[in-house]
């Protein structure tokens, strides 16, 4: 009897694990990953336990589930209910080498510019006028390239720009980059 029950529990969980994995991996809207309410709806109240178990499995593959709190957009009206929900993603647990980064479609100078842009915005408490950012990048990468680079980062979600032309860190930076580690490494670099 006990054996039967444990088998049922196991099957039940593996089914939930599969569903959670599908939600995390397959993109349904504009952004990858899945929101809390999606897990609640598809998996049930115990979704956090399921994600924890899935995370253990993924860690063996150098992957991990990351929870990122979504902020209410600045342009939201007062009548709108703030979406204080979290989104879950699967990210690489470790880090990539330069060759691997190239293989997944990134140019080295673009990555260098991304590092500079993120570090600069962080030093400005996460916000700075677009002109200031372009000026910083143009000193290193040239005027025209800097404009293109900022557009690329906006398109890919690493940066955001509001109507006043103020740049801020995008959802992808929050999800993918360990900001503390980045600033520590920047500080450690000897000139």
């Amino acid at each position, binding site marked *: 009897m006990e054996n039967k029950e444990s088998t049922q529990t196991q099957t039940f969980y593996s089914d939930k694990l599969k569903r959670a994995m599908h939600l995390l*991996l*397959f*993109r*349904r809207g504009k952004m*990858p*990953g899945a929101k809390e309410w999606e897990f609640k709806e598809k998996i049930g109240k115990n979704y956090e336990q399921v994600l924890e178990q899935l995370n253990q499995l993924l860690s063996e593959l150098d*992957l*991990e589930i*990351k929870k990122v709190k979504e902020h209410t957009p600045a342009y939201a009206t007062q009548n709108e209910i703030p979406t204080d929900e979290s989104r879950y*993603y*699967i*990210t*690489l*647990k*470790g*880090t*990539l*080498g*330069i060759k691997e*980064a190239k293989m*997944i479609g990134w140019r*080295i*100078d673009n*990555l*260098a*510019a*991304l*590092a*500079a842009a*993120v*570090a*600069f915005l*962080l*030093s*400005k*408490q996460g*916000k*700075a*006028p677009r002109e*200031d950012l372009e000026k*910083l990048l143009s*000193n*290193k990468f040239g005027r025209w390239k800097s404009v293109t680079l900022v557009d690329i980062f906006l398109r890919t979600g690493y940066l955001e720009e509001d109507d*006043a032309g*103020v740049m801020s860190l995008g959802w992808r930076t929050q*999800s*993918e*980059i*360990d*900001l*503390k*580690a*980045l*600033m*520590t*490494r*920047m*500080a450690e*670099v000897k*000139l």
Partner: protein
Amino acid sequence: MLSDSAKKPTLASGRRELRELVDTCDAIADRKFNPFFLDVKLGVETLRQFFPLWKTFEDHCMDAHTLNRLSEVVRLQNTQLKFQSSALYADPEFIVRKVEHMSEKRLVEVLLQSWHPLAELEQLTEETVTHALSYWDTLLPIAERWKKRQSNEGKAPTSISDETLTGLGVHGEEFNKQINRLYEELRIACENGKAADYWTFARRSTYQETVHRAYLISFLITYGFARLRTEDGNLSLIPIDRPTGKAAANSISFPIPVPRSN
């Protein structure tokens, strides 16, 4: 800024000062200046100084708006203090200097050590399949598309050698010989002093030969070996005794279509 108005506060100077104060607060909110650039206490004192002068409803609204902007600056100052005490704090000038002096490779290494890219899969959805099907339905067969490409895309301009041009009869010794031979032929045809009929002179048994002679005749006319005369719709050629061999400055273009039928 405040010293002049402190001596003699007027309504106009008060309104101006408040506008400047609001502009400064807005610039700080847009991250153009450091929040501590503005002395908030001085701003509040300015408000207090001009408050008794306000007369209209707009003045009081402006006063409230300025106070609201000042409170935003205080909020930003608070955020900055919290940020400076966090592990993320770095002086912007310090970061700018680092970025300028670091090599691209070093910057990439710094990023890669803190970068954990997302893993996701792209897949077919009902919407993408619908789009794909409608695209497929409107897509022309490959042969049709290639036809379109060939007609649209001309060959890129290339250079041509003198030998090739001579071989094609465009210029060179052979071309000059042909022109001179035709000129002599025209002189003989006009020995009786009458003009030679253009089509009698140009037409030959095959269409290809006729076109070739018409082509050479055009050079005779252009370079002053012969003159073309039009009379009642008839074309005639008259050789020039002393050809100049140069194109006439005031020459006009006169297209003559060569019909296929005789």
